[in-house]
């Protein structure tokens, strides 16, 4: 049965949340703008354009039309009873953002910002990407809306996500491998910021998560609020009650904030973000920023981050390129401090076990990022038991991760692995 959700994708944009930051973008002590002065004019321009667009019927209608006819919204809600058997018998409901066009939730934000780019009269878009999901979504929107697209991607990630590099190039985007620093998402953001400082007149930085300077955390969140708004109606319709818990994976935190927001004022609903525990937080090789980090300023905002005692950013690690980031969105930092949301690490091994389990029990191959949320739901279900209902944001699909997973599970030998466009062997992930 088709979902009867009456939610419009633009509702999260048009209707102000009760949890907006102050005028300068502060969520409590977090957020704000820790940026070079050179970028302030562009951020002010973006804030003004967004504020105007959210009251503009034409913009909202265009966003709704694209999400209906192009993205394929609303995304379905899928019962996962066989997975539930492995989760203490709890009822597990999957919000299927993996079924969106381009294969993840990222398109929600990208279409909104791409439309804004057009309205600001800019013709060039830059973006960062980790797993490639945001890069692919951005390349897609730029192809659709005739925008030049440059995607910065750490060299480590271009290797472990070679298929997504090819996808972006097929869509007409230029992919720039970033060879500085740790050569992952953090450094891709640095390089995008350097490009933006240099080309700010012609260029929009289409940031892919709820981090960065104001207005990105609030604007990106609003474009993703549709996830939770739809899911809330769908869960109520399906079960007649609110879920006991809503869970999501957290890298920068965009899919999590998108689904959390519709439940934030429901104290009975636990909100739990699962962060990349990598090899285990005790090894130091992880990306569990909220669980293990401390407050500081990175990439334009005050939030939690992984840092050493001199304030140098620590290198994060995760099997999942999309979660491999030492920072996190400022609203999550506030939700943690006030105790409204909980954040727990999930290791590579737990995530890959969940990846396999969901594939085999329900016929759904999740993105490794989303597998962290599935693993968290299994853990939580065992804790809460069979009366519990757990809503999981299945933020992306796993096609891009097949090579990594096949190596993890020993299904193909290391030397049979795919090669990327530059001829570099995909190096990461083999552990089995």
């Amino acid at each position, binding site marked *: 049965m088709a979902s009867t959700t009456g939610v419009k994708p633009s509702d999260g944009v048009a209707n102000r949340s009760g949890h907006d930051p102050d005028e300068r973008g502060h969520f409590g002590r977090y957020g704000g703008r*820790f940026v070079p002065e050179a970028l302030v004019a562009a951020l002010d321009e973006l804030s003004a354009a967004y504020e105007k667009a959210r009251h503009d019927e034409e913009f909202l209608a265009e966003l709704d039309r694209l999400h209906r006819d192009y993205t394929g919204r609303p995304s379905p809600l899928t019962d996962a009873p066989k997975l539930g058997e492995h989760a203490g018998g709890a009822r597990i409901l999957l919000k299927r953002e993996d079924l969106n066009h381009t294969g993840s939730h990222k398109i929600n934000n990208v279409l909104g910002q791409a439309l804004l780019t057009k309205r600001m009269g800019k013709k060039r878009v830059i973006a960062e990407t980790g797993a490639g999901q945001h890069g692919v979504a951005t390349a897609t929107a730029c192809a659709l809306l005739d925008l030049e697209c440059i995607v910065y991607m750490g060299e480590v990630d271009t290797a472990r996500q070679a298929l997504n590099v090819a996808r972006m190039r097929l869509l007409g985007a230029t992919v720039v491998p970033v060879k500085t620093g740790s050569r992952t998402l953090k450094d891709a953001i640095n390089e995008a910021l350097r490009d933006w400082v240099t080309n700010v007149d012609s260029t929009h930085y289409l940031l892919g998560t709820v981090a960065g300077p104001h207005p990105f955390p609030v604007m990106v969140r609003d474009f993703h609020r549709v996830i939770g708004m739809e899911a809330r109606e769908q869960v109520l319709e399906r079960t007649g009650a609110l879920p006991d818990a809503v869970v999501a994976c957290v890298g920068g935190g965009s899919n999590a904030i998108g689904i959390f927001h519709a439940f934030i004022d429901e104290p009975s609903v636990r909100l739990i973000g699962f962060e990349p525990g990598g090899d285990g937080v005790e090894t130091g090789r992880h990306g569990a920023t909220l669980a293990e980090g401390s407050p500081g300023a990175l990439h334009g905002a005050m939030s939690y981050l992984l840092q050493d005692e001199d304030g140098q950013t620590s290198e994060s690690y995760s099997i999942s390129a999309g979660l491999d980031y030492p920072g996190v969105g400022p609203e999550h930092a506030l939700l943690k401090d006030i105790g409204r949301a909980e954040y727990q690490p999930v290791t590579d091994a737990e995530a890959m076990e969940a990846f396999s389990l969901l594939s085999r029990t329900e016929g759904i191959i999740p993105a490794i990022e989303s597998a962290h949320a599935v693993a968290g739901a299994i853990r939580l279900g065992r804790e809460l038991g069979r009366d519990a209902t757990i809503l999981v944001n299945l933020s992306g699909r796993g096609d891009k991760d097949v090579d990594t997973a096949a190596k993890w599970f020993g299904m193909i030998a290391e030397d049979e692995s795919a090669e990327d466009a530059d001829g570099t062997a995909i190096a990461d992930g083999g552990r089995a």
Partner: protein
Amino acid sequence: MTVADVFACCAADDRGALVGYLPAGYPTVDDSVDLMNAMVEGGCDLIEVGIPYSDPVMDGPTIQVAAETALRNGIRLRDVLTVVERISAAGGSAVVMTYFNPVLRYGVDAFARDLASAGGLGVITPDLIPDEADEWLAASQTHGLDRIFLVAPSSTEERIASTVAACTGFVYATSIMGVTGARDSVADVAPEIVARTRPHTSLPIGVGLGVRSAAQAEQVASFADAVIVGSAFVTAATDRGTDGVRDLAAELAGGVRRAGTRTPA
């Protein structure tokens, strides 16, 4: 000595100031002290001691690589304070250039206190705007440090006014839209941003980003009160060590002298 004294001495000499940047700890702590002392000997009036940072978004490849080298060689924040102390003890005048997170982590007030006691005169903050700087404004006031914020060609009149109102010592005007790195020519927008800033402040205005030659230094000194050079010094240090930076400082200082006192706007 204060930053104002440095500029007053230069003015008494009928010229602008030459400000030279190098990252502390590049390539090692001791080497960086020698290099900075050589900059002073060559004719730099003020030394900008950079704190190497893992995520320098305002820096181009030259300074990024130098910062990475310094970090790899183990530079710590307390070493930066030692570098400042040694430059000051040798008779140089030093301000610190730092991204804000290392200061936050150290503790804003503690950092101001320790920098002042090391003899540092102020701090240039490329990713801190006055809007977010309440704690730093208070700490710099308490410990008598100058706070140098940046204005950019993209800054509106309102932002120029509010930024210079928060500055003490001097105002740092970025000559171009972009990151640090030596360039062949200084952009046309440099005189314009200085001219737009001038009516809002009586503080000296320094121009940075892209300067590497005596001719450029002379050109910039004709409309600005200070010429700020960074990447070119890093390259000189990498290629020819103390002799390289001493020679470059002398060459740039010659350019600044040839410009004389800037033409009044």
